[in-house]
């Protein structure tokens, strides 16, 4: 499971994955987690939707809606982007490489 989002980062109590569309991922630089990256979620038109700071293990999470999303990270280790398509409610995972 190298590089997979840390499943120990628990979802809030009461999160219903049959209804909520949750996007999770990890920021990586040369395969190593990047702590404290600024990760923003952009919608299908490139519009800013939300921003979080990645955890010490590089993990981040968004509550979104079905659709195609761009995740963009800024960090001291560099910047990067990834595209994630959520076809419906549930947990959707990605990796976000910065360089």
């Amino acid at each position, binding site marked *: 499971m190298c590089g997979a989002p840390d499943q120990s980062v628990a979802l809030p109590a009461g999160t219903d994955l049959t209804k909520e569309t949750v996007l999770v991922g990890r920021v990586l630089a040369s395969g190593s987690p990047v702590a404290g990256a600024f990760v923003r979620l952009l919608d299908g038109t490139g*519009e800013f939707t939300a921003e979080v700071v990645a955890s010490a293990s590089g993990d981040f999470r968004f*509550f979104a809606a079905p659709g195609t999303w761009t995740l963009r990270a800024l960090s001291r280790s560099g910047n990067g982007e990834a595209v994630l398509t959520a076809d419906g409610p549930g947990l959707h995972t990605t990796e976000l490489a910065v360089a």
Partner: protein
Amino acid sequence: MSRQDVLVTADWAEKNLGTDGIVFVEVDEDTTAYDGGHLPAAVKINWTTELQDPVRRDIVSKEQFEQLLSSKGIAEDDLVVLYGGNNNWFAAYAYWEFKLYGHEGVKLLDGGRKKWELDGRPLTTDEVSRPSTSYTAKDADLSIRAFRDEVVDSIGVKNLVDVRSPDEFSGKILAPAHLPQEQSQRPGHIPTAINVPWSKAANEDGTFKSDDDLRELYGEAGLDGSQPTIAYCRIGERSSHTWVVLRELLGHSDVKNYDGSWTEYGSLIGVPIELGTGSR
């Protein structure tokens, strides 16, 4: 007001850390961020427990604000430099509240924590304590705060600027996407509001866009700055960011922040709600 009356740069801030008469104050959406490292000599204000009444749904009263600033060691003539995470959302909310209670010398650190961290500037976990003061606030300046009845009466009359994301505006989602989607309100927006997301006023590193870019942004959105404007979002913090832009940076004369925002409006019985991309 000009930009230097409202904002300080990270360079300026770093040179003025520890200067007498200047108090750096961190206000974060994530109220634990300060504890993991903050600007040297900065004190923390917790927006959930210190800028809001602990029981009633309201901002703190004048007396509570006086107690807060006294306990933080802030005097009436101190220059307060506010900064925080998430592009200064909650620092802007604090800025609006400081202005509401008449604190003259208050500025925002342009770019907030994000630019500070991306620049690799110093952070510390040292405990900061300042001798307490006896702060006297002014009566709340209600010319910068809108309440629900005025908002309803402003439909089709005043500029209403919804600064949430397009998906919140249209009613697709109820909260920003880093938060669980609450279900207590009806989705949508106030009829006749225009949607100019707060994020369009900021650069990727959290700094505010240039005055020229900001004028162009709101000009293209059809906002007539000579007319009264009410800004709102979900809980009043992102609209504080836009309030800073419109009133403080662009100098529009009559701009109010509706801090009740969508969590109040979307819960009211009987008020009009519009879905979709908007009528204006």
